[in-house]
């Protein structure tokens, strides 16, 4: 397994885990309408910033661990296959994000609360990253 493949798995786990926690713990705010829109926005903003911090720290730790486990692989440049796998992942992730962006645009046009629009965009970015990660995982396993 190449460094790029391990890195992809690590990012998939970190992103999936962090945002699974974020959306699960924010579900009552996002779906229930328990708080006022202003409170909901403040709460989700704080959690959003927290998730960014978690992802940065976790990804640094994961990449250091991967590099320590196999130092020679960490210095290898991405080859043609890695670039093709990356491009296919970007292509598929882009399609997913476009669908969510359309939904967010429609939400803004129909005057939905700020926090719902923001979380729809965030969900799009996360879904796109997850689709990209799974696509790369499948392409590395099955070949391109």
């Amino acid at each position: 397994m190449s460094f790029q493949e391990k890195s992809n798995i690590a990012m998939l786990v970190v992103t999936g885990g962090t945002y699974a926690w974020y959306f699960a713990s924010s579900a009552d705010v996002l779906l229930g309408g328990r708080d006022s829109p202003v409170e909901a926005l403040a709460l989700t903003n704080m959690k959003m910033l927290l998730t960014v911090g978690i992802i940065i720290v976790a990804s640094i730790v994961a990449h250091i661990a991967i590099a320590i486990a196999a130092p020679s692989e960490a210095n290898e440049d991405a080859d043609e296959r890695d670039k093709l796998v990356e491009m296919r992942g970007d292509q598929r992730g882009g399609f997913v994000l476009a669908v969510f962006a359309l939904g967010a645009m429609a939400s803004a046009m129909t005057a939905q609360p700020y926090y719902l629009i923001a979380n729809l965009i965030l969900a799009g970015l996360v879904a796109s990253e997850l689709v990209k990660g799974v696509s790369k995982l499948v392409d590395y396993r099955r070949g391109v």
Partner: protein
Amino acid sequence: MPGFLEKMNRAVAIGTILALGWYLIRVVPQVFSRPLDEVTWKVEMVIAVVVFVATLIADIVRAAISNRKELGEADVVDDGRDHAAEQRGDAWGGHAMHAAAFVALMLLVLDFDPFWAANSLFVGAMLAGLVSALVKMLTLRGSV
């Protein structure tokens, strides 16, 4: 003579420029001359999308008629170069869409009016489509 795929991408580029140009001409002057609440943009956005789809369909039908022979002989995306162009273009478009979604998310987190988020997404999506079509055309011509 350009192939069907190249003509299709040219149609996307022309449709995007026309629709986005028309939208910006209609909306931008309003932003500078009246309060944000009084700016009319929702109908304009829908019309811009309709203009884009209509020009796209018209151009694709025209390209299909002028490339009947090519379409009869092979699939639209039929060789390695076509696939590479599609993937590279979509990947670049995906990156542009990610940037637009990130900007829109930041604007909402910072409590800007949803007008700005919706317009960042709309303009970003149109530019992403344009970038994607241009990269595909350049790749098909062998410039990238």
